[in-house]
């Protein structure tokens, strides 16, 4: 008498285990590639660490799709990174001091005035632009640090 075929050499229980293992591997991969902050914790923010045209384009693309994520700019090695960003009116920009020295972030343009005050290493400040236009954020301690911000409606 012929024994009923079991098909691929796994039982139904081993099929379930295989599926769970697959999910676990995919989840681990996603978590490992998620954006992280300076201290290594997972971040919901868009973190841009390079100053390439690609990173700027990527941000604009995200904005055009309607995302309203906070844009994070780092202060590292006495420079803003990236040095150019485009954001929407009302979208928050977080400035994170990843240097081991004191920084500051300020912007004065017409009636708009922002001053983070002294920003200790590891701390962050946040600013939001309410009017479209071109702005320049600077550091009041390191005059060469500049961040160009284009705010679109």
């Amino acid at each position, binding site marked *: 008498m012929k024994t009923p075929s079991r098909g691929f050499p796994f039982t139904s229980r081993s099929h379930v285990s295989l599926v769970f293992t697959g999910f676990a591997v995919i989840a681990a991969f996603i978590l490992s590639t998620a954006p992280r902050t300076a201290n290594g914790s997972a971040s919901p923010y868009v973190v841009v660490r390079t100053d390439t045209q690609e990173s700027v384009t990527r941000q604009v693309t995200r904005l055009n799709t309607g995302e309203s994520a906070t844009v994070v700019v780092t202060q590292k090695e006495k420079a803003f990174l990236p040095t150019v960003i485009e954001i929407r009116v009302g979208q928050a920009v977080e400035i994170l001091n990843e240097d081991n*020295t*004191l920084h*500051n972030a*300020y912007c*004065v343009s017409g009636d708009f*005035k922002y*001053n983070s*005050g*002294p920003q200790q290493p590891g701390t962050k400040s946040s600013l939001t632009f309410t009017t479209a236009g071109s702005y320049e954020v*600077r*550091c*009041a*301690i390191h*005059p060469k640090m500049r961040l160009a911000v284009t705010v679109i409606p």
Partner: protein
Amino acid sequence: MFALNKTTGVVLSAAILAAIALVALGAAKLPPPAVELDLAVNERFEFMPARLVCKAGAPVHLRVTHRMPARGPDLPHTTVLLRRGTDVDGFGNAVLGARAEDNYVPPAFRAQVLAASSLVHSGGQVQVDFQAPSVPGDYPIVCSFPGHCLLGMKAVLVVE
């Protein structure tokens, strides 16, 4: 006793009057006594106090003390006395492009500077000696380090 004739008396009187006039003129030209003023700067981009007072023409010894600790991070400042009526906001914008070797004083505003300190670093102290302007009025004091004036780092020297 002494006997003076009329001519001698007139000459003597004139000489005494001339001497008195010379002394009075000399006294009028004496400058007011020197004054010592203290100004503190800090990490909040402030001058403290924001108002200093001195007499017109008085020699001024202005001590500027940085309140941040010397062993901490550095946040340099300057102290610049400007002529009355100087466009302070214009100065604040112009210093954004100024050079460190110019003490962050933009060339376009060099003629407006009456006195200026060197950079004062955290925990440091500098002294600026100058003669107060002879014309009474309010004279702006600003920090020329880029950005600080725009952030409100201003004071005033009131010359009486």
